[in-house]
């Protein structure tokens, strides 16, 4: 039983939800999967007076294929994302990241919108979306006299995270969808996601999302994004002009990009930095192997 009283509404229209969120932004919380908000309310760490459930709003859900991207609704669950054939085909890195969130029950309920709006630094989606150059579609009530007017804006993922568990969303603004650019075919691109956690199902100590692509000259280009090491995810471009990378040089590049690693009871700053380097390099290696396989199958 949750201690503090609140009212709960579950609108079916986006404009209604945004109006409710704008009415009292400090005292109102949007509810998606609830895998973060409900336990926080049970523990007394959050006590909103008003809950606005987003799950029954069609525009905020579902996975849709667009010409150049896959649009993933904010209320799409990790399970939906991990198993959708379009995500698996066009953005396998995201499907892999989603498949490793929490456990089965968490994935059946938790959503991508909730995860990235909460912006836990160790969340799987953060480095995966950063590596994929995703764009966040954010919606809010538009100020003014029209009751149902809403405004929409597109936020490049690199600008979305503002600091430790902070995003650039304004008061009353929500993540409506994530647009993930369609990736290259498996013959031209390899991807890998690695999660390093002390306990199965927990948030990772660090996680890494690597993308490697083949270039016409036979060289390869790529990046690896690291989550969990810093308050926000960081993306490291791999040295260019090469056909392959040694683990050592990837590790060095990662270490240089992480200047003040976080420290907690799970991992000291030094250990976290070391694990970021090791698992980031392993993710790159796995992405290269995936590209090798893809090229062989061409």
């Amino acid at each position, binding site marked *: 039983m949750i201690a503090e009283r*609140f009212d*709960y509404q*579950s609108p079916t229209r986006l404009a209604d939800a945004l109006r409710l969120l704008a009415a009292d932004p400090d005292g109102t919380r949007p509810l998606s999967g*609830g*895998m973060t908000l*409900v*336990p926080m309310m049970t523990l007394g760490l959050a006590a909103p007076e008003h*809950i606005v459930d987003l799950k029954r709003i069609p525009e905020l859900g579902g996975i849709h294929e667009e010409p150049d991207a896959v649009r993933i609704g904010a209320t799409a669950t990790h399970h939906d994302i991990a198993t959708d054939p379009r995500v698996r085909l066009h953005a396998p890195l995201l499907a892999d990241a989603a498949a490793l969130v929490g456990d089965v*029950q968490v994935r059946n*309920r938790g959503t991508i919108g909730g995860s990235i709006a909460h912006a836990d630094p160790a969340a799987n989606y953060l480095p995966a979306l950063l590596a994929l150059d995703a764009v966040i579609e954010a919606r809010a009530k538009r100020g003014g006299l029209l009751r149902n007017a809403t405004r929409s804006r597109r936020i490049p993922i690199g600008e979305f995270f503002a600091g430790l568990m902070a995003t650039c969303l304004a008061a009353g603004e929500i993540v409506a969808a994530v647009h993930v650019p369609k990736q290259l075919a498996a013959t031209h691109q390899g991807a890998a996601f690695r999660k390093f956690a002390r306990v199965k199902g927990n948030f990772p100590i660090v996680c890494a999302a690597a993308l490697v692509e083949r270039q016409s000259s036979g060289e390869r280009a790529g990046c690896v994004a690291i989550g969990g090491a810093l308050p926000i995810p960081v993306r490291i471009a791999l040295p260019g002009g090469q056909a392959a990378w040694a683990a050592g040089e990837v590790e060095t590049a990662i270490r240089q990009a992480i200047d003040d690693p976080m420290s907690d009871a799970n991992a000291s700053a030094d250990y976290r930095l070391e694990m970021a380097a090791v698992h980031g390099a392993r993710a790159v290696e796995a992405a290269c192997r995936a590209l090798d396989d893809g090229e062989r199958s061409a």
Partner: protein
Amino acid sequence: MRQPVRITVNGRELEADADTRKLLVNLLRDDLELTGTHFGCGTGTCGACTVMLNGRCVKSCCVLAVDADGAELLTIEGVANDAPHPVQQALAECHGVQCGFCTPGMVLSAIELLQDNPAPSDAEIREALAGNLCRCTGYVNIVAAVQLAATRMAQGDA
């Protein structure tokens, strides 16, 4: 504040009046007296509160009762028909139950696994049950039980 909640539980349509603060696990246990679903950590880690909601396992301590309005639920009480479900039977035979606190959640998670993957490897079983913590058995006999149930279900020994 209280709101009506209409849910179908184990095939029966029910209506309850729930305070918004009530969690689904409490609605099931306290209002509907379906105490097979257990309240463990209360914050979404241990999985003792696992139920199937619209065909998929969720931790009912992370679901507001009012949010379950319109949902179809399967709890442990609805798993057996005239005879125990193969997963239940196998758990008993393989000694995969000691105190029994995690068991209802384990059964439902195993049922979901076998629906998605009728011939899982041991590693896949462990992965699928990662959201259900057991303090007694060390998991070995639970995994064996799920394998046994999978074999029997594949052979049609329901």
